[in-house]
């Protein structure tokens, strides 16, 4: 690229210098308006080739027996998708050829309520991941998605008897809760949000719908497991969870995919509604294969006295754009975000969070850890926004990065936007390496260098792993161990 081109390209980014006023209004009025500016001058961006046509979308809609409103919603989203640009600020996604992505892959089976009925090869894939076993032992319910469709869904009886609804999105669209789905679907993450939200709106398939009635406390976690098996495919599951007033839920999401030599795309969408005095914990261990473009959007809206807890581990993917966002709308709403990102060879993982404080006395607490190794790039990106209405809001961010060698990269790009004076906003960040002194200290007790380094890294990750159920913490530590092996000189 010539200097002139560099300059030209740079100059034309970000035409809207201060559209933040509109954003505040959008938040205050609800969240159904565009939150991102996507009207940038088109000529300066490379355009993704259109791999999607209205015909394809029509076909998806027909096969899925969408209600008419959903059919229209998809077409509208498609139109937006074709008009919007890919983001200019994050990791490159040039390797993602939209025209080559088979956006809809349907496994040759209908959804089952019993593992025995799930086809052998799919079952064995989930068996290897320990899903059925886990269900018996410590989960309230399990949903398993294979490529584009949910292949298995089950809820333990005692949870169902509490009135908890846990079903696949397709059934929810036409079932007892159809009106509720229509009321909430993509209202928190509108298709106008960004290009991949629009794509999601057009081709979404699969995912889960959860409704926890007022006052119901689900004592053990629900889990969805997503596996993308088809080569060069996209997965666009939609997760909609409504935790009604005073209710309590822990939801676990796991993701994996085998490695193909062509790019896969995951553009899921998670919308979480935490009503008055309700609590929701949403835990994710993401271990997509390292050719995955993970462009996932997650957002939560928290009402008065509600509490949202995110626990997020990012280990897989080639490229990730992942920033779970929490809108603290009600008075005293509270959010805690705990995340870890481990970027190894060939990975460019751009993760972080956004906290939007609207209600009085809202609080947010962010703790993140990131690691970079073998040329991996990890970026922590965040925004804490304190709106003028958020009197007495408190926010505290602590992000730590560990560089494991000098061919990798680690960036920290936080933003704080404070528009009221009686808020208390704190931010701490630290970047560094494993201290030689600490390694020597551990070695002086007879521990090998490799083991000492691994122990220090596990300790570094501990604040995140201790937030996970034991089985998942073990899985995470295992992933860290795998990543650390081979880095030893």
């Amino acid at each position, binding site marked *: 690229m010539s200097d002139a081109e560099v300059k030209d390209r740079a100059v034309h980014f970000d035409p809207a210098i201060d559209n933040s006023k509109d954003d505040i209004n959008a938040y205050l009025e609800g969240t159904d308006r565009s939150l991102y500016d996507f009207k940038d001058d088109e000529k300066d961006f490379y355009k993704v080739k259109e791999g999607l046509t209205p015909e394809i979308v029509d076909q998806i809609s027909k096969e899925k027996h969408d209600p008419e409103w959903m059919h229209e919603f998809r077409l509208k989203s498609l139109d937006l998708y074709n008009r919007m640009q890919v983001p*200019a600020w994050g990791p490159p996604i040039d390797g993602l050829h939209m025209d080559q992505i088979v956006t809809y892959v349907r496994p040759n089976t209908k959804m089952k309520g019993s593992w025995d009925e799930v086809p052998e090869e799919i079952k064995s894939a989930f068996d290897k991941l320990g899903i059925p076993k886990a269900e018996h032992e410590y989960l309230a319910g399990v949903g398993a998605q294979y490529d584009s469709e949910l292949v298995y869904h089950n809820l333990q009886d005692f949870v169902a008897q509490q009135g908890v609804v846990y079903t696949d999105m397709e059934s929810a669209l036409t079932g007892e809760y159809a009106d509720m789905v229509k009321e909430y679907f993509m209202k928190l993450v509108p298709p106008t949000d960004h290009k991949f939200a629009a794509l999601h709106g057009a081709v979404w398939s699969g995912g889960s719908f959860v409704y926890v009635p007022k006052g119901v406390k689900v004592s053990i976690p629900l889990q969805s497991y997503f596996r993308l098996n088809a080569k060069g495919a996209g997965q666009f599951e939609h997760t909609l969870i409504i935790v009604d007033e005073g209710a309590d839920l822990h939801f676990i999401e796991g993701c994996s995919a085998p490695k193909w030599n062509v790019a896969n795309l995951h553009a899921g969408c998670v919308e979480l509604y935490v009503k008055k005095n309700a609590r929701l914990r949403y835990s994710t261990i993401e271990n997509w294969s390292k050719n995955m473009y993970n462009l996932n959007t997650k957002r939560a809206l928290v009402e008065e006295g509600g509490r949202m807890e995110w626990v997020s581990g990012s280990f897989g993917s080639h490229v990730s754009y992942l920033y779970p966002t929490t809108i603290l709308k009600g008075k005293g709403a509270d959010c805690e975000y705990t995340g870890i990102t481990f970027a190894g060879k060939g990975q460019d993982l751009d993760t972080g969070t956004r906290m939007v404080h609207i209600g009085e006395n809202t609080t947010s607490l962010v703790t993140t850890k990131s690691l970079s190794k073998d040329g991996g790039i990890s970026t922590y990106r965040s925004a804490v926004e304190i709106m003028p209405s958020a009197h007495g809001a408190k926010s505290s961010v602590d992000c730590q990065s560990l560089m494991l060698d000098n061919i990798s990269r680690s960036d920290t790009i936080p933003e704080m936007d404070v528009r009221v004076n009686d808020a208390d906003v704190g931010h701490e960040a630290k970047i560094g390496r494993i201290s030689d002194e600490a390694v020597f200290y551990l070695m002086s007790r007879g521990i090998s260098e490799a083991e000492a380094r691994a122990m220090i890294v596990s300790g570094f990750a501990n604040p995140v792993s201790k937030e996970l159920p034991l089985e998942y913490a073990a899985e995470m530590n295992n992933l860290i161990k795998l990543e650390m092996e081979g880095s030893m000189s």
Partner: protein
Amino acid sequence: MNEQDIRINHLPCLTWNRLGVNHRSVPVKSGLEGAAKLMESGLDQDGITSENVTVSEAEAYADSLAHGIRREKYVAGKTAIYMTQAFQTGLGGEFTDYIDKVAGDASIYRVAANAKPAKPVILNYDFGAGADDAAIHVIVAGENSESTFLINYRSDADAAGFSAVGTKVILGKGAKLNLIKVNLLGSGFEQLDDTGAVAEESAVFSFRQMELGGAETYSGCYVDQNGQKSEAYIDSGYMVSEDHTLDLNYVTAQRGKKTVSNFNFKGVLQDRARKTLRDTIDFRNGSAGSVGDEQEDVLLLDPTVVNKSVPVILCEEEDVDGRHGASIGRLSEDMLYYLETRGLSEKVATVMMVRGRLHSIEREIPDDETQNAIDAFISEQFGMD
């Protein structure tokens, strides 16, 4: 006197557009009327020389001294970065292009190798009842020299006008240079104040800025820590009132081994003030053994202020230690209570705290007259002594 927009204060690494911090678009005058009065002192000392040159001579000279700097385009893994200058500055290339056009001439100041002039060199720009001016300085600190340059911008309290300043600093091996800029301009001023510095081995660049005046103020400083063991200290005190705007961009690019960078910001916002601060520590590959630290402490006095802070750390070297911290909010209740038990009213206590913050930056300015002027300016803002 037409106006045009230029883009300045680019964040070295893009983030979400909607935050409005990736850069700033500002209007600038294409023709300037009525220059400010310049009073210089301290130039008669041994080891200090100055000369007036054309703008292109000054730029070419600065570029030639900054020859060690690689021209950069992209940071690995990030989509775009705005770095088209050979000699990087805080405000960026469009500002350099602009000021090169509007400034009539430029000044080069040289400090001879090993010279240690006792007094600071002081440049006082007095805009009086109102004026437009643009100035370009190139400051060359010879090897192992030690010197201080103080640049004051002042006008009558209610005056309006426009000021654009570009300062490029080259520090030779072991040179120590303090550059101090104090903005006490009237409430109708737009000021763009740009600084770029290149620090060679073991050089120590200390940049101190007081941003107290003006309606719209845009400042930036980019320090290229090319030499090993070079050190950069950036201390900035600011106070923004009424519906004024302050937009800041500071970057230290740490390339050499064992370099040190330290940012310290103390700010106060009141009324409907708007402020954006971008401060970036950029650890480049090869900067092993380097440390960087940035701290911002902002006091918000009114519920109508807007404060944006973007403390960035970019890192492509393992053996570094980088930290940043920010604390944004009002005076702590405990502190206020403590001061009230000593018989101070809330208002007086608040002013005391504001003064304390700004004073921590101000007290290192080695010129009594300037310190007095700052004190008087702050008193006037709060309507008390």
